[in-house]
């Protein structure tokens, strides 16, 4: 008999349980309840977000497969596709940072190679709490150790990402991992099971008790008791993952595989159910044949274990031995654990007895969908310009040497960013670039979001996250193709959180349409809140673009003495929600800079043309910290100073630190500068010369020069000092 307590402990409401009973036609037993609760968890069912996710554009001529599979697929030409997805591992990483982050990397890699793609790069976007918070340093150390330990061993380069700090993440950090793979377009594999009688095969690592209820944990908020949840965190084994990649790709080169799905959230339950539901077939599983790591595991535990590095496959029966030989060569477990049936039921046996037997498609298809109440976030006023500071250079040092903008070298130097020998542009630039192996093409990759904008104005923030990702791809010379999203929010049952979600989605929809960037995969992470305090709305965007000819790739480093620096785009002087407003002016919350998506598009097209015509030799988008920070980053990367000509209006500090959108700084030789200005004028986009490269200092008219040595020292010092001496 299932009690009300048992139902609640599985994260289901009474109404949901009643609905499930009606679909099953009787009361479920405990194993069935466990399966049902996992499938209907927020994490697996998207029950609070589905209603809104449907509004995101997901198609384009170059999209091969959008959301709904393990990862999204876009055409990159020459018969090849890029396969990519970003996913959150927030809850486990807060509880057990090293294993939580490591298994986040492992899981997202499996989503990519499950589809037949060799993983070629990972990125990760990290948000931590205030550096002074008692847990922050420990969490940074653990997460970085987990990501590095996994990615380095598995041999996929960690090429980029983002890391920042904010009070809003004190109780809930964000660990969002993105993986990108490359496959031949005609060798992509899906999770759609078919062929009654075909064997269902388990491969990879053994099953233990780790991670049971991981999906339901990720679907609840935290309170003081979270440390007790540590046993629900999975443990990663990158060595087994490496073997699994090689074995799966070797097998996929044969024609043995009918369908394949990794065992991620809710483990065997979710993989078996999804494969069956997608194919409109049933699956019989004999749990006595599952390779187990621990003794006396019952059906409930086996079905809900989230042990890592495991895959479920449907094979052609006559090829089963080919597959077995490959997995034995790689010393991985291989076990035929069941077969496909035409009964459309998930039927599970343990110790010879029937342990669960339910019609599966109705449960997957009729998972509850909620149109949650939501309340719009009230608009904030525009920021009145703050008074000028005493010394703009001291402001620059403070920003460049603070937690938000400081160099993250301490982190990325612990990641192997070069393995596979195709990393053309590693961490530290606008976007990372990996060469498509054996070609002269590149994939440009970036992750972006500005949570303080999303918090101040969700719709503008959602649009800005997409626009900034677009700009970062354009800046390295890529044609932006598509995005994956990782939507991190608080408790969706609270109307104000749901209002943030709706606002961000609406902004993303507008930006994706205006910039031709369909969403091809993604993940929603709700319940990022502790004791009723939610994180900033953080719709993290992972974007992929293609560079047709790597000779046209750009970096942000200034190249030559005497080169001219030009600002492209319009400066309005908007300091609202800027880093300057928060860190220097300590201003009240205010509206973020508005987004003009038509302008973003035109500016992007202009920069793309400037790069195509070889008119510029360095390029950087203007984002966090504004123009002065962007210039400083270009100067540090090129190890060349800049003398800036400040216009008479707006006020110098406003011009230097405003975060107006749709802007780039480009560098070019003195002889090409006129062509750049003329081209900008053809596009009807403001462009102006703002300075010249030379020397070893940044010089703003009216202020003392600031040496690159001093700037670099400030930029590089903060994170190592915080981590190693703090």
């Amino acid at each position, binding site marked *: 008999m299932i009690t009300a307590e048992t139902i609640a402990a599985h994260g289901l409401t009474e109404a949901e349980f009643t609905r499930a009973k009606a679909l099953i036609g009787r009361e479920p037993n405990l194993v069935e309840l466990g399966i049902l609760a996992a499938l209907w968890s927020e994490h697996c069912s998207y029950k609070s977000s589905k209603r809104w996710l449907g509004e995101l554009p997901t198609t384009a001529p170059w999209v091969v497969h959008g959301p709904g599979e393990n990862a999204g697929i876009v055409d990159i030409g020459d018969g090849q596709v890029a396969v990519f997805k970003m996913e959150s591992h927030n809850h486990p990483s807060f509880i057990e940072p090293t294993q939580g982050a490591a298994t986040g990397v492992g899981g997202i890699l499996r989503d990519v190679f499950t589809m037949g793609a060799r993983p070629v790069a990972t990125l990760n976007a990290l948000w931590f709490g205030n550096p002074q918070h008692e847990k922050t340093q420990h969490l940074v150390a653990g997460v970085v150790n987990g990501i590095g330990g996994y990615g*380095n061993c598995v041999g996929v380069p960690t090429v980029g990402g983002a890391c920042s700090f904010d009070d809003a993440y004190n109780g809930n950090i964000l660990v969002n991992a993105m993986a990108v793979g490359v496959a031949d377009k005609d060798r992509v594999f899906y999770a759609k099971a078919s062929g009654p009688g075909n064997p269902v095969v388990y491969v990879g690592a053994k099953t233990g008790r780790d991670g049971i209820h991981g999906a339901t944990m990720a679907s609840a908020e935290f309170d003081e008791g979270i440390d007790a949840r540590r046993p629900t965190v999975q443990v990663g084994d990158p060595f087994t993952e490496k073997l699994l990649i090689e074995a799966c790709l070797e097998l996929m080169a044969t024609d043995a595989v009918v369908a394949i799905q990794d065992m991620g959230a809710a483990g065997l339950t979710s993989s078996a159910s999804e494969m069956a539901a997608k194919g409109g077939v049933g699956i019989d599983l004999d749990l006595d044949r599952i390779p187990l790591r621990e003794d006396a595991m019952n059906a409930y535990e086996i079905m809900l274990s989230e042990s890592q590095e495991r895959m479920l496959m449907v094979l052609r029966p006559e090829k089963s031995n080919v597959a077995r030989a490959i997995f034995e060569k790689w010393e991985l477990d291989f076990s035929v654990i069941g077969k496909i049936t035409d009964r459309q039921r998930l039927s599970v046996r343990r110790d010879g007895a029937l342990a669960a037997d339910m019609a599966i498609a109705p449960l997957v298809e009729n998972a509850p969908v909620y149109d949650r109440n939501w309340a719009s976030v009230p608009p904030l006023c525009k920021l009145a310009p703050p008074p000028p500071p005493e010394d703009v250079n001291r402001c620059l040092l403070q920003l460049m040497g603070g937690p938000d903008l400081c160099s993250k070298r301490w982190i990325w130097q612990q990641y192997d960013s*070069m393995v596979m020998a195709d990393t053309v542009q590693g961490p530290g630039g606008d976007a990372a670039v990996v060469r498509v192996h054996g070609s002269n093409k590149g994939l440009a990759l970036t992750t972006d979001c500005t949570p303080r904008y999303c918090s101040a104005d969700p719709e503008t923030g959602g649009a800005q996250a997409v626009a900034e990702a677009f700009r970062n791809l354009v800046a390295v010379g890529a044609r932006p193709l598509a995005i994956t999203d990782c939507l991190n929010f608080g408790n969706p049952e609270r109307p104000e959180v749901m209002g943030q979600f709706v606002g961000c989605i609406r902004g993303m929809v507008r930006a994706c349409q205006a910039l031709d960037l369909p969403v091809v995969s993604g993940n929603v992470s709700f319940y990022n809140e502790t004791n009723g305090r939610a994180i900033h709305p953080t719709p993290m965007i992972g974007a992929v673009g293609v560079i047709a000819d790597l000779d046209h790739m750009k970096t942000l480093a200034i190249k030559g003495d005497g080169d001219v620096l030009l600002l492209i785009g319009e400066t309005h002087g908007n300091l609202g929600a800027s880093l300057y407003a928060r860190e220097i002016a300590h201003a009240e919350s205010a509206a973020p800079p508005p987004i003009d998506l038509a302008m973003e598009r035109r500016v992007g097209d202009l920069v793309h043309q400037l790069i195509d015509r070889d008119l510029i030799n360095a390029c950087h988008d203007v984002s966090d910290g504004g123009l002065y920070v962007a210039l400083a980053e270009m100067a540090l990367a090129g190890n060349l100073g800049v003398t800036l000509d400040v216009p008479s209006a707006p006020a110098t500090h406003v011009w230097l630190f405003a975060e107006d959108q749709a802007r780039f700084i480009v560098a070019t030789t003195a002889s090409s500068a006129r062509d750049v200005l003329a081209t900008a004028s053809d596009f009807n986009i403001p462009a102006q010369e703002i300075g010249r490269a030379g020397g070893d200092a940044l010089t703003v008219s009216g202020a003392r020069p600031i040496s690159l040595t001093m700037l670099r020292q400030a930029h590089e010092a903060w994170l190592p000092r915080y981590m190693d001496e703090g």
Partner: protein
Amino acid sequence: MNLGVIVFPGSNCDRDVQVALSPRQSGGEPSMIWHRENTLPALDLIVLPGGYSYGDYLRSGAMAAHSPVMRAVVEAAQAGIPILAICNGFQIAAEAGLVPGGLIANENRKFICRDVDLRVENSDSRFTSGYQNGQIVRYPIAHHDGNYYADEETLNRLEGEGQIAFRYCSADGAVTDADNPNGSSRNIAGVFNQSRNVLALMPHPERAADSRLGGCDGHALFDALLASLS
């Protein structure tokens, strides 16, 4: 010319070194040899590649050193066949006794991935003859356990017999503690065996052999090595 790259479970720079060698020799790609082989085909060069053989479990290189193929590799080394051991390959070579000393965790206990400057200590080998003694070259490192350790007597012998191939140094060639990324004894980045047909080094020459990837200082190593074989 027959070149072979040994692939252990967990090797992950096997393809990278295969790519670095391929365009530089006429005989096509080096062959990949699975670690379970008991015998080797006739080879002119054996590469022990970088990576995480056996996940670095137990101790870096310790389990791979007992792979079936390693007996044949040791015999080949004794017969004078050139062996290039990079990163995890160095750890395996040390565990298998192909070169003296061992590799322990970096002094800062962290994985380090970055370019380093190296001083060529002995250009009198088939691996380093494309460089001058004292020349400074730049290769990347990417390791957690790259801290070379040997006892004083061994270190003195290595120095006396010209078995030190590379040392970590500053951009102008000074060998200082500040330029020692991982705490290696006497800044040692790479060593030869006594007859100098085995080179084992932590830095990655195969990651410094493509102008797109930021440097080509590794070309001279591969060119000299392949020229010595033909």
